[in-house]
Structures are given as C-alpha cells and as structure tokens.
C-alpha cells in the first residue's frame, strides 16, 4: 500500500554529499510503510518550523514498567499515521557483537511489527527500535524476546550498560568486561525493568584507563581495568621502534609526555620505567603498542558519581575503590554486592530525580562512604582539604582507624 508521499524539500537536501544519508533510508521505508511516510512529513514540518512535536506518555509491555520510550505526536492531525512513534530500547550483547543471521532476524521482526527504522546504537547503549504503535508494542517485544533479547532501561531505574570491545580484541584489556557486564547487569533486572529508584543509574565497563566507554563522565558506577605490577617491556621492540622513529621522536612523544616523568630512554635505546610512580595513564602503551603492555597483576578501579549536565552540572566519577581483583566468581559477587549496597543507600537517601553523584555532592563523600561502609583512602582525593573551617576533634580516633588498617594490611 503506497501512501501519498509528503514533499520534503529540506530533507531532500540531506540526500546529497558523501556521508550515508538517513533520509534516503527513510524514503525507502516510506514506500511501503504509511507510518514512515507521515514521519518524514512531520520531520520536514519540524525542519520548516524549527520546532519539535513529540510528547511523552505511558506505554509498557506486560510485567515491565520501563524499556519503552513513548512518543505521541502533537501534529497528529496533519500526520496521522505517525501519531504514535514509540521506541523499544533493547540491550545488545556486551561489546555490541552480531552475526548476520541475528541482524537479519532482528530486521525481520522490525519489518513485521514496526517502522523498519533501527538505530545502532543510542547514546544509552541500546538498540533503538524506533517507530512502533502502542497496539504493536507487545508483539514486537515478544518477538525480540524470543530471539534472546530483553528490554533496556528507561526512567528512574538501572539503565542499559555498555562495555568496550576489550578482551575480545584489544590487547590493553585488564579484565573480562563481558562477564563483569553480564554478572552485574543481570543481577539488577528487576531494578532495570521496574523503575523505582530516585533517578537513573548507569554502569559502564572499560577494559583499561583509555576508558573508551566514557565511564568516568557518563556513569554512576565506572569499572575500569588497571594493573598493579610493572608495565611489560619488550626491549627488542623498543629498539626497533627507536630505530624506526628516531630518538627525538621517542623523547618528544613518549618520554616527555609521561604525566609523572617516570620514563627514561637509555643510551642503548632501551626504556626504563619507575613503575612506583606510573599512574597507569596508558599513553606510552598507546604509542608503542608492540613494545609495551599493561602488567599481569590486573584488576579494576571503581569510580562513582559521574553524570551529564542535568541538574547541577556535569560531574566526574570519584575513585571509590583504587584497586580490586576481578577474576574469581567470588570477586564478581563482591562487585555485585558493592553495587547493591550503593544503590540501596542511594535509593534510601537520594532525592527525587537526583543522580548518585549529586547525592554525594550534597551530603559529602565521607558521609557517603560511612553510609556504604567503605573507609577513606588518599587515592580518593586529588589533594587534601585546603579550607580550615572544619571540626576535627575526633582526630585521634580517626587516625587510630588508619593505623589499624595499615597494620592489618602489613599483617596480611
């Protein structure tokens, strides 16, 4: 059933140029989908008037409270077929791996039940099946669910997570991102599907401090791979690199860029690293991919409280756990327990629509730590307090705690 196509003079201009055009794809869909014909009409209307015309609402699947982003058109009188244009957020596999059979099966579902417009992927890390009528949502979900996929988060809930390609293909990876991602997320399916938290809560997993998932800036709990022992050096590869690029290049681009000045290029073209002063920034390893690699005593650093602008401005995550191993089943369970403790504390103490980082900002890091039972460590701060307006009469008590912990560490 071909429907009358709307004139789209603005959008037409986005069909030219070398980058793949979404408009061309939309037009193909509009040939057999009246919904997409009217969607194009509404989009053109937005381009002409420089105004958006969607509003939210409530649409869910049976048994779930979230996962669907409802969209109702404010100009449905002009474009009736796209009056409902909801999105199903669906969680991909960690690392966003697909084979062609799976992708085709997902396309089949979407051609049958939806608009045929699929965004890979949204900023949330979901596959976004965009354009579904309320009446088709359940059938679309059932078919996707049959393929082994589940809805992601929306609203005040645990949200869809992301992890980098990591161990699947990247030599920098310091932990098993895919396993950590699934163990954590699949322990929170209830909080994911039934929004009942103060606001959203995001986990992200990056295999090394390059943090390809932007986890420090974009997640409430960032799990980032790192190592404690020495950077591994293949000195023969170092020599080859120096031979190829020259000593000046190595001096200027590796040695002098080290943030803690802990590297040295020796007279015989080998590298020396003062590992006790290396902050695991990854720069030298990124430049000399064949000669340098992370050490072997690997684990993760955990930061909490990162988020985007709404409401008090952007926040970085703050170090909560400088290092912990993530190898055994028990390690994963402890990671899940830590996440549960944090979420429980925040669910209890967070204000409505307040992200974890905002709660921490409001109550102070030390109160947060006390609430979740984690001791302070110097790695949590960039520097100690510089404002003298503070009460410190319990100093001796606190100092004693530190001494005890240090003694415990030495005993262990």
């Amino acid at each position, binding site marked *: 059933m071909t429907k009358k196509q709307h004139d789209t003079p603005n959008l037409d201009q*986005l069909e030219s140029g070398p980058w793949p055009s979404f408009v061309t794809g939309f037009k193909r869909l509009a040939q057999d989908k009246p919904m997409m014909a009217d969607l194009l009409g509404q989009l053109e209307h937005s381009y002409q008037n420089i105004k958006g015309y969607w509003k939210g609402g409530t649409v869910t699947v049976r048994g779930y409270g979230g996962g669907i982003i409802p969209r109702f058109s404010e100009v449905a009188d002009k474009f009736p077929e796209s009056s409902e244009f909801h999105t199903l957020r669906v969680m991909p596999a960690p690392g966003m791996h697909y084979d062609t059979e799976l992708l085709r099966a997902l396309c089949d579902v979407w051609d049958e039940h939806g608009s045929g417009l699929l965004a890979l992927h949204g*900023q949330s890390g979901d596959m976004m099946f965009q354009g579904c009528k309320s009446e088709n949502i359940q059938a679309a979900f*059932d078919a996707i669910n049959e393929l082994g996929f589940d809805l992601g988060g929306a609203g005040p809930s645990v949200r869809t997570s992301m992890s980098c390609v990591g161990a699947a293909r990247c*030599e920098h990876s310091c932990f098993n991102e*895919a396993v950590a991602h699934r163990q954590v997320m699949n322990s929170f399916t209830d909080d994911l599907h039934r929004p009942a938290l103060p606001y959203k809560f995001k986990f992200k997993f990056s295999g090394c401090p390059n943090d390809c998932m932007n986890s420090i800036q974009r997640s409430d709990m960032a799990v980032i791979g790192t190592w404690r022992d020495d950077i591994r050096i293949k000195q023969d590869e170092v020599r080859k690199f120096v031979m190829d690029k020259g000593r000046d290049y190595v001096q200027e681009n590796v040695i002098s860029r080290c943030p803690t000045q802990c590297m040295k290029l020796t007279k015989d073209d080998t590298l020396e690293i003062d590992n006790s002063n290396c902050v695991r*920034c990854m720069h030298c390893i990124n430049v000399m991919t064949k000669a340098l690699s992370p050490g072997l005593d690997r684990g993760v650093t955990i930061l909490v409280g990162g988020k985007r*602008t709404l409401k*008090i401005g952007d926040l970085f995550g703050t170090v909560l756990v400088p290092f912990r191993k993530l190898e055994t089943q028990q390690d994963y369970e402890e990671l899940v327990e830590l996440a549960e403790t944090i979420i429980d504390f925040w669910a209890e103490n967070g204000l409505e629509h307040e992200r974890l980082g905002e709660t921490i900002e409001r109550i102070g890091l030390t109160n947060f730590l006390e609430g979740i039972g984690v001791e302070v460590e110097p790695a949590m701060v960039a520097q100690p307090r510089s404002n003298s307006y503070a009460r410190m009469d319990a100093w001796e008590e606190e100092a004693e705690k530190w001494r005890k912990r240090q003694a415990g560490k030495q005993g262990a």
Partner: protein
Amino acid sequence: MSDQYREAVESGVPDPFQYMHPVMRRNYGQWDWHERCRPGVLHHRSVNGDSIWTVRAGTQRQMDTGTIRKLCAIADEYGESHVRFTIRSNIEFMVSDEARVVPLIDKLNDEGFPVGGTGNSVSMISHTQGFLHCDIPATDASGVVKALMDELYEEFVNERMPNRVHISTSCCQINCGGQADIAINIQHTKPPMINHDLVANICERPSVVARCPVAAIRPAIVNGKPSLEVDERKCICCGACYPPCPPMQINDPVNSKLAIWIGGKNSNARSKPSFMKLVAAGLPNKPPRWPEVSALVKKILKCYQEDARDWERVGEWVERIGWPRFFEKTGLPFTRFHVDNWKGAKYTLNHSTHIRF
C-alpha cells in the same frame, strides 16, 4: 499469537560469545599487539599467533532495515559474517583472512560507506535524537550529523589530525551527546511559555519546581487557578521543566542558537579526563545544513591541526598554548559569557601571573 499471554523472559544482557567472530572468541583476553595498516583498518595479533583484521566504516546510525540487510550481505560475501558496532555508530567487519581486506573496503566504498574513523581521524559524531524522537529538541540531530560529516568526510577517511578527534552534538542543554573534543550544543534562548490552562490539570507542581536547576519556578495562582510562574531573569532556558510538565512550552521556532564547546576528554592518557569549555555561542540554527556551524568547526580543526603536537588532544593543545592564544588564533570573540558563574566557578579563574604575551 493467540489470546494466550506470553510471559516475558527476563533474560537481561545476552551472552556475546555466541555472536563473536570465532578468532576473537578463541583468543579472548590473549591479544598481544595491534597496528593500523591504513586508515579504517586495524590488525590485531594474539599471543597464539592468530591475526584478525578489522575494517571500520561509518553509518548513518538511524538505519532502515534495507541498509542493515545490505551491510549483512556485504559481511557475508566480503567479510566473515561477524560484525560489531562502536560507541560512535561505526560498523566493524572482522576477518581472519587478510586477502579479504581490500575487496571489502572497495565494496564498502562502492556502496557508499566511508572506511575510516580509526586512530588520529575525526570519527563519527556521537549522535542524539533531535526532531526525530525527543520531546525537547531545539534542533535536529540526524541532520546536523549528516551535514557535518559530509563536510568532515576527508578527515574521517584520513588520519591526519594530531590525535583522535571526538565530536558530539546535542539538541538541548541536557547534552546527551556528551563530552567531546568539540561539542556542538543547541540552546533555547527564551524561557518557556506557560500554558496556564493546562498546568492545573496535568502537572504535579512540586516536582516541576524541584526539577529546575536554578530555582526559577514558583507555584502561583493565575486566573484563580493553581499554576506556575518563571522568574525570567533567573531562567537559563534549559527545558528541563518540559518533560514533567508539558504546559511549560520550551519548544519555540525562533529562539534557539548553537554553541560550540571544546576540550572534553574521557581518556586518562597523559592528562586526567576533562570537561569541555565554551568557545562560541550565538550561531544560527539553520536547517537543513547549518553552514555557520560547519564553518566554525572546520576552522577550529584547522588551527588544531596546524598548531598541536602529535598526540595532543584538542583540550591538551589549548592547555599548552593558553586560552588567550586560542581566541587569537581562531579569531573568536571572548565575552562575559565565557566566564563561569556556576558552582565551583572560582576554580576556573586565573589566580597567578602566568600570562603569555
């Protein structure tokens, strides 16, 4: 399906190993090094001696199923039927046979998919929703991305920047696009118009009041009915009150402008992660191609390309040369809006005699 209800299987996140290229599965966690053979191609070698080549191509992100099926056909015929996507909506084809790389690239180019986005290139722009799907967009997202990527195409398929460049766009100040080396963010420039007749019926007023980042909303009685009022001198026109209260009409055809922010960095390499800083605002919101925006982005990129040292990200480059020089080199005006007045603003001022002349 009959009237029998199907119970949802709360399967959560699926297992990736079933979809992963077999060479990646076999060498999981055992990769040794990688090299970039040419823009858009990565070669990874494992400690077991296995190799995998990755060919990365740009997509439009908002794809019709026809485009996805086309990519699948390419993966079946020229690749090895396994693909993945990057955080910036690039598709990656993995092959264990090096001989497939060049024909695969040729095919992708023939079909209109640019191969690149690796190393020190300008990768695909991180993409938001815009007019297509969000409820508070002041502009589109897919169109802005398409228009800009057309202009930056050569920088996607080449690796000739000092370091990688991540660009994001956002269609409101919530900034879903995220931190980036260069971020293009729209701003509404007028406080919301309140439809008082509707507030009383629709809105839970305390939660709308609480939503405002600058406490500009007060409960009020208008025409004898409970409503809200906005202190227009305080309001920063962010639109955050609209989703909980649609009568706070923020969407407006005339009053919106684009701003450019630079120097966001998520990686810990060399310097600590950083947030982006405002460099320009007041750019016209002109669909379908936003020419003033592309022109300024290209100008900033050119200055960066000419002046930054190898491996310096945009923010690190400006950190080294200083902000006065950045404004001098780009010819951008420095205004009172560049001086932060949000919480923590005092830490962004210069408390020293460190000044370059």
